[in-house]
């Protein structure tokens, strides 16, 4: 059973976070809110998200797993206006989730959870580098790099005391450096890894709305992005596997 009401914008934010990586997921619903963890089809990126009951205007739920068609949800969200209140309603043992807003009532058939990939294990990672910056700055850097390349290196140079992002195309280069005064926080540990901009572009769009993004970096290791949504009542972790530097 699920009976909840939520601001359309917060719901849109939640769906956007997930849809950046996957088109369907297993949504865990309980009295602690909603949460999911999913990897993309290529096993390169992972999203974990939790939205606490306080993010909803009202929320009652029993523990269950729902198979969500995220791509379809995204299309429905396009029909909502800013400031709409969305109510979600799933009866006990029901297979259809009712979404009601502004007099519209969508009745969405849930996916069979067995057809959706299981929630992955969280890799154990050693990510010593830590940077905190605004989501907007991060997204801008990603966009700037994607003009000339399909990959970007993120790194910390402790001797110069900077966080840098650099990208190299066939003929062109771009480098962006940010010192301590432009960042919220920077750890002085050597780190550098290379990532596919294909994935980062989609993640960056979502992260641009966050006031603060915590970036955890290692050497040729995945990168982890942590940020809040829904005014701190929801939390997101993105994990992205690196590319190895070309020979």
């Amino acid at each position, binding site marked *: 059973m699920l009976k909840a009401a939520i601001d359309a914008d917060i719901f849109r934010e939640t769906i956007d976070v997930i849809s950046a990586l996957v088109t369907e997921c297993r949504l865990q619903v309980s009295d602690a809110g909603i949460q999911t963890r999913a990897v993309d089809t290529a096993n390169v990126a992972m999203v974990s998200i939790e939205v606490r009951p306080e993010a909803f205007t009202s929320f009652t739920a029993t523990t269950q797993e729902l198979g969500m068609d995220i791509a379809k949800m995204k299309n429905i969200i396009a029909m909502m206006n800013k400031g709409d209140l969305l109510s979600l309603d799933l009866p006990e043992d029901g297979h259809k989730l009712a979404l009601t807003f502004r007099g519209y009532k969508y009745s969405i058939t849930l996916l069979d959870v067995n057809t959706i990939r299981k929630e992955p294990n969280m890799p154990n990672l050693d990510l010593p580098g830590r940077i905190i910056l605004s989501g907007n700055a991060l997204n801008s850097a990603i966009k700037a790099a994607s003009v000339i390349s399909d990959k970007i290196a993120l790194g910390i140079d402790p001797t110069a005391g900077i966080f840098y992002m650099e990208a190299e195309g066939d003929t062109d280069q771009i480098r962006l450096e940010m010192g301590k005064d432009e960042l919220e926080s920077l750890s002085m540990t050597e780190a550098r890894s290379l990532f596919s901009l294909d994935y980062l572009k989609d993640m960056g769009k979502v992260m641009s709305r966050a006031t603060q993004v915590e970036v955890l970096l290692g050497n040729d290791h995945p990168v982890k992005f942590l940020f809040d949504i829904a005014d701190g009542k929801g939390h997101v972790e993105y994990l992205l596997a690196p*590319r190895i530097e070309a020979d």
Partner: protein
Amino acid sequence: MKQCGTCKGRGFCGLSQCPVTSRFYASLSISPSSSYMGGAPSVFVGSTGYPRVRGGPLLTDGSDNPEHWVHHKFGIDDIVRVRAQTIRGTAEASITCESMHEIALSSRPVDVEVAFEKPVRFDLTFDGTLAPVGLYGSITSIAVLDNARVERPVERVTSDTDLRATEAVDQLYREKVDVHRIQQLFTSGLLGVRRRIVPTRWAITAVDDMIAEGLKQRIRHNPTPEGIRIHTATLYGNQIICLLLPGPWAYEMIEIWDKNSLWGGEKTSIIRDGERERKSGYSPIAGAYYSARLAVLELLEQTGHMASAIVVRRVSDEYWAPLGTWVIREAARAALKTPPLCCPDIDTASRTITALLGSSDWLAASTHFRTIRTQKTLFDFISG
């Protein structure tokens, strides 16, 4: 910069006649006549002046179906000869619309009687997407003498005006109606809710794309077999190499026009395009991209597998006349029917392709290949 590789006769250079295609103009004898009685196997709609397009029947007693040409081992000369004798009759849609419907609906050519304004004139048109046609005449009247013979699924889908075009195309394809036939129905405006006549060139790509969308949905949950496979075949100077790798759906096509080939010019020209789950925008490779993709998806559906594919099309100077994107579809289908060369690892695969092509140019152009070689997965970091 020479743009012939992306333009393929669409007039990007601004010249009134394509210098590449105009070299075929001289090669045929004409017997001008201002009437025609005989078979009309298919229809054709031009894209000039859209939405006020002109269209009409293609008139020939020969075969019009590319799959038939390939099956009967027609050479490129034979095809050009057959097509050069084909008449493209056009008129404003109001005159030809009904007879176009009859012709497109029928599974075998219907007989027609046509009167032209003036004797037909020689006007061999080539372009990358369409099969060539040699003679041209402006129609004043047309009468269909036969009754159309219509297969049951075609009858059902074309008479249902609440069925959207995408679903109609998908249904026809699943009931084993030829892709060529579906394109004919689409161009003559017999599918969908708001029906209209569609320029044939657009219809060909639209149908390829719609079928591919349906196939992508159906193969989404297919298992990925281990192993790297390479299939290859050559048709009319088009060498198709198809590399299938384990992984989720991803597709990349690399088109290599050899030096002195049709659109190649003085040096080799290479064009690439690719996609992951969704394709946005029209491909710079044009219709060929969609035709080859259809062949790959067809194979994956038949075998119940999922794979990432890289298709290399290399065009030599043997391909002296552009015949239409069906060549790529048939070449890719033929390639995928051949027994695969199995490669133990990705580096062997790249060496094999380079050996087949005799050059490693494709490797520099392929971004998918680079990604596959360098991208780690999260599983690489889950210990024990």
